[in-house]
């Protein structure tokens, strides 16, 4: 733990999150999408790669309800799931 008095050995240094903290979803606006995501996880043996669509939906819901700063989803690592914009039709989407 980071508070252990083991001087000289490595300890964990917590870092602040890149985009700060999520505001709390007091009204449960995105709860339904969260449940979908959790169900997907349970069905797929908790494999995150198979449930990325649901996590993308959840984050979009958050952004729509002022619970998250609006950002292009490519910046959140969903580049592979976004359709390329029409101006860049020559670039292939990653599988």
């Amino acid at each position, binding site marked *: *733990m*980071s508070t252990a008095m083991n001087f000289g050995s*490595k*300890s*964990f*240094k*917590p*870092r*602040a*999150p*890149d*985009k*700060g*903290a*999520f505001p*709390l*979803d*007091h009204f*449960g606006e995105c*709860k339904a999408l*969260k449940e979908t*995501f*959790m169900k997907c*996880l349970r069905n797929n*043996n*908790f*494999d*995150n*790669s198979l449930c*990325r669509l649901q*996590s993308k939906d*959840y*984050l979009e819901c*958050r952004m729509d309800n002022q619970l*998250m700063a609006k950002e292009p989803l*490519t*910046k*959140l*690592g*969903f*580049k592979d799931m976004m359709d390329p914009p029409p101006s860049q039709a020559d670039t292939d989407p*990653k599988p």
Partner: protein
Amino acid sequence: MTEDSTKIPPPGELPADSASGVDRLQVPGMLLPVLLRPSLCRPRASVFLTRCVRTLRCDAPMPPPLSRAEHFLLRRLPPRLHAQSRGIESRGRKSKSREEEWKSRNKTGLTYIAAAGVGMLGLSYAAVPLYRLYCQAAGLGGTAVAGHDAQQVETMTPVKERVLKISFNADTHASMQWNFRPQQSEIFVVPGETALAFYRAKNPTNAPIIGISTYNVVPFDAGQYFNKIQCFCFEEQRLNPHEEVDMPVFFYIDPEFAEDPRMARVDTITLSYTFFEAKEGQKLPLPGYSYN
């Protein structure tokens, strides 16, 4: 040797017999301690001194015939006596100059010591920014984690071969009354892929409680590859009475994790959150070495 000045015969009783100059020689010998004393604290003895000197000088204008040794001694003694009488002053002068020399030496020594002390004090104040610079340059203590680039989220590609299990743990402080637990016990991710996980917190009491959390990643070395894009830590979160909320954590494992030889055997990373109760108006600093 007579220590007591009262034992010295008064001047009138000085042996004036001219049988031999030895008596006369003895007298100055007896008077030597007296000669030293006057410089210290006996004004009366100094009177004796001057009188005796006078008697020695003025007395006996015709010295008696002396033997050769006595002659020799007599020749030698008066200069010494002279020297004695003058010696006090010259010794006084010498000791004065020596004293002055000591004083000046002490003064220079003291100034050097004082300068060293002030220098040490200044060095201890300067050590704080200097140490900070050194640590950033040398990367000691894990402070130089400057390689964490927020832009790489856009461009990173998942390393599909390396599947990691992230297990979740939730703790609360003993006095914290929230019910806090993860909604999934584990999740399988690959480095370079963003992942979402949920915790749930419930406030079962009748009063609003403000909580603040911190996290921990085990193993420690893997913790530097664990990058959180957004979570619910380090900021106060308020829960109204009987309210239950979902708390997401959006994170990814750095793709360089797959290339680190030290991480070759790491398959499980545990993320542990701990909630504490926050006091009103308390401002906690964000973790990090530089305080903005």
